[in-house]
C-alpha cells in the first residue's frame, strides 16, 4: 500500500516531531510511505480568507505531488477537509477527483482503512482530547454534540488502545478553540478568549497534556499555555500513538 504523506506547511516548519511520528507510525503499521518533497500547502489559508480563486497554482502543485498514491494521509483534519472539499485542477481534474476520494486524516486512516486494533503504545499520562471542528464536524471523525445520534470517536477508539493513558471528560466536549486561520489575528480578542476558555476546561480536569488531531488548534492552545507559564503541554495524537515506553520526543 503506497501512502503519500501530506504534512501541512506549519507542521513541517514548527512541529517536525508530529510529522516524524506520523511517518514512523504508518511505517510501523506496514505502509510504504513517501513524503513528496515538492508539496507546499493545501491552500486553505487563502481559501478561508475568501481567496479560493487564487489557489489554482497551489492546487496544481498539490495534484502534481500526490497523484498516483493509493492513499494520501495527513495528520490534520482541517487540511484534509479542505482538500476533500475544494481540490480542483484545470490541468488534471481527474487526478484531483481521485485525490479528494483518497485523502484521509491520520486517525481516520488508522481506524477506517488500516482498521488498527491492539496498538503497541504506552503513554501513562492524564490527557484531555481536543476535538478540532473541521475534523469532527467536517470529516465526522467523531459524533457531534449538537446531533441526536449515536456517539462515537475515531481518535478515542485509538487512544483507548494506548496503555496507561487516562482520558478526561471535558465540560464542553466539542467547543471550538478559536484558532480559525486568519481569524486568530483578525479577531484577536474573541479568538484569544476562546482559546483561554478551552484551555481552562482542560486545566480544570488537571490534565498533563492537551492532545488533538490538528496541530493548528494545538499551536493556538500552546501559545496560551506558554503565556500562562503553564507546565501543561500539547501533543499530537500521532505522537501518543507512536510513543513506546519512552516519553514523547519534545
Amino acid at each position, binding site marked *: 500500500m503506497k501512502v503519500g504523506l501530506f504534512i501541512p506547511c506549519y507542521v513541517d516548519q514548527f512541529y517536525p516531531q508530529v510529522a516524524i511520528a506520523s511517518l514512523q507510525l504508518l511505517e510501523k503499521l506496514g505502509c510504504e510511505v513517501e513524503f513528496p518533497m515538492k508539496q507546499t500547502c493545501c491552500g486553505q489559508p487563502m481559501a*478561508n480568507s475568501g481567496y479560493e480563486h487564487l489557489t489554482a*497554482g497551489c492546487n496544481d502543485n498539490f495534484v502534481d505531488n500526490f497523484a498516483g498514491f493509493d492513499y494520501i494521509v495527513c495528520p490534520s483534519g482541517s487540511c484534509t477537509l479542505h482538500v476533500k472539499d475544494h481540490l480542483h485542477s484545470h490541468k488534471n481534474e481527474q487526478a484531483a477527483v481521485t485525490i479528494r476520494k483518497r485523502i484521509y486524516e491520520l486517525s481516520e486512516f488508522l481506524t477506517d482503512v488500516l482498521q488498527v486494533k491492539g496498538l503497541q503504545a504506552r503513554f501513562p499520562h492524564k490527557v484531555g482530547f481536543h476535538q478540532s471542528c473541521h475534523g469532527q464536524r467536517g470529516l465526522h471523525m467523531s459524533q457531534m454534540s449538537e446531533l441526536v445520534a449515536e456517539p462515537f470517536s475515531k481518535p478515542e477508539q485509538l487512544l483507548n488502545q494506548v496503555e496507561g493513558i487516562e482520558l478526561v471528560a471535558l465540560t464542553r466536549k466539542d*467547543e471550538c478553540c478559536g484558532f480559525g486561520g486568519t481569524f486568530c489575528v483578525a479577531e484577536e480578542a474573541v479568538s484569544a478568549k476562546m482559546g483561554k476558555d478551552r484551555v481552562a476546561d482542560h486545566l480544570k480536569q488537571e490534565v498533563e497534556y492537551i492532545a488533538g488531531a490538528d496541530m493548528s488548534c494545538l499551536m493556538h492552545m500552546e*501559545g496560551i499555555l506558554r503565556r500562562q507559564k503553564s507546565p501543561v503541554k500539547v501533543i499530537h495524537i500521532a505522537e501518543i500513538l507512536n510513543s513506546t515506553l519512552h516519553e514523547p520526543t519534545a
Partner: protein
Amino acid sequence: MNQPHKEHAELAEKFNADEDRVNWHDETLWWIRQKRDKIVWQLPEWEQLRETASQIKHNVLSHLSEYLLEFEANAQKNGVTVHWAANGEEHNKIVYKLLKEQGVTQMVKSKSMLTEECHLNEFLEKQGIEVVDTDLGERIVQLAKEPPSHIVLPCIHWKKEEIGELFHKFLGTPEGNADPQFLTHAARLALRQDFLTRKVALTGVNFAVAETGEFVVCTNEGNADMGAHLSNVHIASMGIEKLIPKRKHLGVFLRLLTRSATGQPITTYSSHFSKPRPGQQMHIILVDNGRSVHLGKEEFRNSLKCIRCGACMNTCPVYRRSGGHSYHNAVAGPIGSILAPNFDMRKNADLPFASTLCGSCSNVCPVKIDIHDQLYKWRQVLAKEGHTPKAKTAAMKVMAVTLSKPGIFTVAGKMGRIVMRNVPGLVNNKLNPWFKQREMPEAPKESFREWYQKNRKK
C-alpha cells in the same frame, strides 16, 4: 442609522474588555444550548424532523409566488386585508397610514424582528407616533434606546442590577431592587395599562399557512395576544419567507421551534389567527425587502429557510463571546452574518469573517441551513468583489505564488524560521495580534523536510 459603523472585531474587542461579563454572557447562552440539547434528546426522531422541515422549506422557496397568492386569497376570504411592501420604507408607510386612519398616535407592538429590520420604531417616532414594545426584553432595550442583541432573548446582555436601575428611572421601582420576579411584575403592571388603552396592535408572524390564510404567533409572555385581542386594529407584519404550505406542517415547525430556541417543548401561546374578531380590522403586511432578489442567489437562498429560533446564536462560540451588538445588524450571530451581506455587502463585509467556521451553527439549525458553508461562500464573493482589505489581497497574492512554486516555498519557510528563531523581537512584538495574548511556537532546529532528507532519502 447611517453613521459609519465600527467593524465586528473592534466591537468584539470592546465587549471583551470586561472578561467577567464575557464569561457571564457565554455561560448564560451555553446554558440555553444545554437546555436545547436535553430536550431534543428526548425525541429520537429529531434529525428526521429537521430534515423534513428543511424539505418543506425547500418546497416553499420553489413555490413562493404561488403560495403567496394562495395565502392572500384565503386570508382575504377570512376577512383580512393583505398589503404588499417592496421594502422597509413601504412597510413603515403602510403601518403609518393605518394608524392615521384610526386617528391614533400610540401603538403596542410585540416581538417582530422584521420591524427591527425595517427600522419601524425610528420611522414612527419621527411621525410623532409612540410605539411601546411589549415583550419584556424588548421593552428593556427600548427604554435603554438600544436595539435587541439577540432575536429571541433581546436583552440577554443586560444584568438584572442594570435592569433594576433602568426600571427605577423609567417605571419608578425602588432603587436597588434587582429581583427578576419583582421587576417583571412592575413591567406587567405598567404594560397592562398600555394594552388596555392602545387601539392598534402590531405583531410579528412566526408562520403563515397558504392553505388556510391563517398565521401563527408564538410567545411565552402572552403579549402578542393581549395586544391583538384588545385592539381595534391588528397589524401583522411578515417577511414573505414565513409561509408554509399546509396547516399540518405546523406540527413539524412548532415541535422544532421552541425546543431549538429555549429548550421548552412549546411556547406558552401558539396563537392561530385566521379571522378578525367581530368589529375588528386585521391587516397583514407581506414584506419583501430584498428577499425576492436573495432567492435568486443559488448559493445563498437557503438562509431564507430560517425560522428565527436563535439556536445558532446560542451555540456560536464567537457570538457568545462578542455579544449581539458587535454584529451591527438587526439579526446578529451566524444567521445574521449570512443575511446581512444581502442587504449591504460593503457595510457588512466584516460579518462573514466573524467566525471560525466551526460548523456548530449548521448542526443545531432546525431547518438545516448550511450556515457555515454560506459564511465560507460569502468570503469568496466579498474578496472577489473587492470588499476585503487591500493589504490582505496583496499578501494573499504573494502567498498564492509562493505556494505554487515549491522552490520558493522551502526558502520562504526556512527564512520564516530563521527570523523566528534568531530575532524574536521582530515577530514577538505588540504589532503582532497573535502575540498579545499568546506565545509564538518555538522554531525547531530543523524542519521535517530537512529531517526527511537526511533520514529517508539517503
